[in-house]
């Protein structure tokens, strides 16, 4: 009994380390100034997939849709123990919202095929929508369980999972294949493995191999790709054409979500309000807090 998993991962700006230069005057983020990191909840999702592999065997494949430099996190997935990695990258994917993104990812997952689980982090720290996982499941027409903290039991064609809900948890069962989104606090991701780091540090996407051939007439891309495939260093690279996608559903064209306005909110301290320590005073305070939606 072994299970194959596909894990959706994303490279995100490190929003925990925002310094002065990062925020533009209009309140938007200057991405070029932010270091890019592996979205924490996606790393937890990969950990869960690897735990299933450790226990039952099978294959773990990671995919990401992103710019060429997203290959960094794919290498990191290989360092942790993923068997294969795919970069889904095309200029025409730029400006995608969650609808367009889940379209591309679901098509890539169909292209790879042969899976029992699709894992993803609950949400990415840049968009915070938590929509891509669920939308991908809808497009794949498979069940989904979100906010998962723990895998309770895996059987031949079904899985039992524990998911977080307000004030507690619930235990759900699903048939396979299914899509699972994972909370970061649920699992501590394993460290990079020294021997895998040394073995896969040279893993490259097609785009990176093409860069190597530029200005070097002795290197031919097909030969190079074969060599990297043979060494296990090739990161599969898929474009819109490779996946035979409908262009009108990709990138900015396929994205109905438009950012209407970005407002820079600066919180400042205001006046002090004295609340008399009486029953009435406290009751007024609570009313006030409820009006401001801080309580209730």
């Amino acid at each position: 009994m072994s299970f194959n998993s596909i894990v959706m991962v994303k490279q995100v700006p490190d929003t925990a380390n925002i310094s002065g230069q990062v925020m533009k005057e209009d309140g938007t983020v200057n991405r070029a100034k932010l270091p890019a990191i592996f979205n924490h909840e996606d790393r937890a999702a990969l950990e869960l997939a690897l735990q299933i592999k450790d226990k039952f065997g099978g294959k773990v494949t990671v995919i990401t849709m992103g710019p060429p430099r997203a290959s960094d996190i794919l290498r990191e997935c290989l360092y942790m123990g993923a068997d294969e990695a795919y970069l889904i990258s095309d200029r025409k994917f730029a400006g995608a919202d969650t609808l367009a993104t889940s379209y591309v990812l679901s098509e890539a997952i169909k292209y790879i095929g042969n899976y029992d689980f699709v894992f993803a982090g609950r949400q990415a720290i840049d968009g915070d929508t938590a929509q891509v996982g669920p939308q991908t499941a809808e497009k794949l027409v498979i069940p989904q369980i979100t906010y998962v903290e723990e895998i309770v039991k895996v059987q031949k064609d079904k899985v039992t999972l524990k998911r977080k809900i307000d004030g507690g948890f619930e235990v759900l069962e699903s048939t396979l294949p299914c899509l699972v989104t994972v909370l970061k606090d649920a699992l501590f991701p394993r460290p990079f493995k020294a021997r895998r780091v040394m073995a896969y540090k040279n893993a490259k996407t097609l785009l990176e191999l093409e860069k190597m051939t530029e200005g070097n007439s002795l290197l031919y891309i097909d030969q190079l790709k074969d060599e990297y495939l043979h060494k296990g260093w090739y990161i599969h690279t898929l474009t819109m054409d490779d996946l035979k996608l409908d262009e009108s559903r990709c990138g900015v064209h396929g994205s109905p979500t438009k950012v209407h306005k970005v407002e820079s909110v600066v919180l400042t301290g205001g006046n002090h309000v004295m609340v008399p320590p009486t029953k009435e005073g406290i009751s007024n305070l609570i009313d006030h807090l409820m009006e401001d939606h801080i309580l209730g």
Partner: protein
Amino acid sequence: MANYFSENRDILFHFDRFKLKEVVDIIEENYSQTEKFQDAPHNYEDAIENYRKVLEIVGDIAANFIAPRAASIDEEGATIDYGKVKYAKGTQESLDILAQAELMGMILPRRFGGLNFPTTVYMMAVEIISRAEASLMNIFGLQDIGKTLDKFATEEQKEKYLPGFSSGLYTGAMALTEPDAGSDLQAVKLSAYQDENGKWFLRGVKRFITNGNGDVLLVLARTESGTKDARGLSMLACMKDDTIKIRRIEHKLGIHGSPTCEMQFNDTPAELVGTRRFGLLKYVLYLMYRARVGIGAQSLGISQQAYEEALKYAKAREQFGKSIYQLPVIANMLIDMRVTLESNRTLFYATCHWLDRKEAYEDMFEIYKAEKKPLNEINEKLKEALKITNLLTPMTKLILSEACNKITYDSIQIHGGTGYMKEFPVERLARDARITNIYEGTSQMQVVAATGGVINDVLVDYITEWEQKEYKGSLVKLKSSLLEIRSIFNDALKYVKDKKDSNFQDVAAKDLVELYSYIYTGYLLLDEANDDMSRVFSAKRYILDSLAKAKKNAESIKNELYSDILHADSILI
């Protein structure tokens, strides 16, 4: 995210200056392992890239996983319950993650699951781990036991023990000391005997055994009954089992995470490692080089953290309307700490390089011998490396462990009353530091071990080469200070030699060893400053400070300060 490797400029400076090509060429068998092992390097540059990447993992785990557990490890400590030793929770978690990251066999061959790294790179990892949690080093650093087995054990023994070391399944211990055999290991009594089938068994008591609860024990035992000296001692290996009783673990001032065991061997089955009678003379000696350098790494790690804490506190603490960092007296103390730290690291990695060379030449020697190739050249190289390692290993352990005590002491001082309190980490660092100049040979023993090399001036060729080298700009003046220290040393050495009094020499030896270390470290720093302007400040302070100290060292010798030891009984009332 914090990283104790990639965010430490001084460590990176040394990493970028590593000159390990000759050593790596040898241990990688000219990069012939790539067919068999995906992680094997294709050339020297590739190897260096591997080392960098792996040290980044070490730095990440140390800073973000281990360091946050240090206080609780100190608080909880290792415990014993009905003879069973248990690590503190944080210690166990840290060991688990290091094993997951495949870092427990850094210096073992790939065929046993190791990373096949040179000692220098491994010691950088030991330094980084020690900074995060000093006592974890006492277990992480026991990889040297696997290395010793790899060097001297039979193929069958290696297959039995080494894969478990690499995977983290086994930890080890070296069981050397006994109640009556501490510094004087020749007095070891624990006996090893054979049954009629030639199987070995161990019987007796060992004391102060770091990680004595480990799975694989290397035991120094008396195989030749009736003997009383080192020639009756052999090295045996055994697995932990019910015949070994942990009688107690010690309650210590510091390094609480590391269990220090008193253990009793009751007819424990064991295997001989290597040749009989060579236990102390060859195998423990080999292990001891590595163990002493390991304590150097531990001292550096603790010193680094004590310095960081002092700097952070000095910048944050305000008195007299400004941060105490801005007070010249405090800034001066911090600079002293920083310069000591940097000069120690310079001396340390030079020593590691020599240890690596020594071991690589030993391996080459064996290969040449087996292939019946001429041995003259490699033999010369090996002799040279041995001579220098024999000096630098104890000298480095002496200087770094003493400095570690001074730096942690000053770190508390900069914290003032706060530093004396448990709430701040510096008191823990000071307690952890206190053992570094005691175990693996006290400072006094290190002086004894280094004296021969100092009196024979074994670094003379290197020093002479430096003396003839041209240095840039203001460094010329610093070079003249080093020349002056050299002449002070020569004078003092001549004085001691002329006196032909072995008691006097014993007491004066500390001054001589210190003097010699100023010269060697001074020139290493001068070279660094010559190559990189940012190192000029530390070279300057180190050398000028050393000149002042050198004068004092020499005065103590030539003024016959020590002549009163003849009247010790009258003074020590």
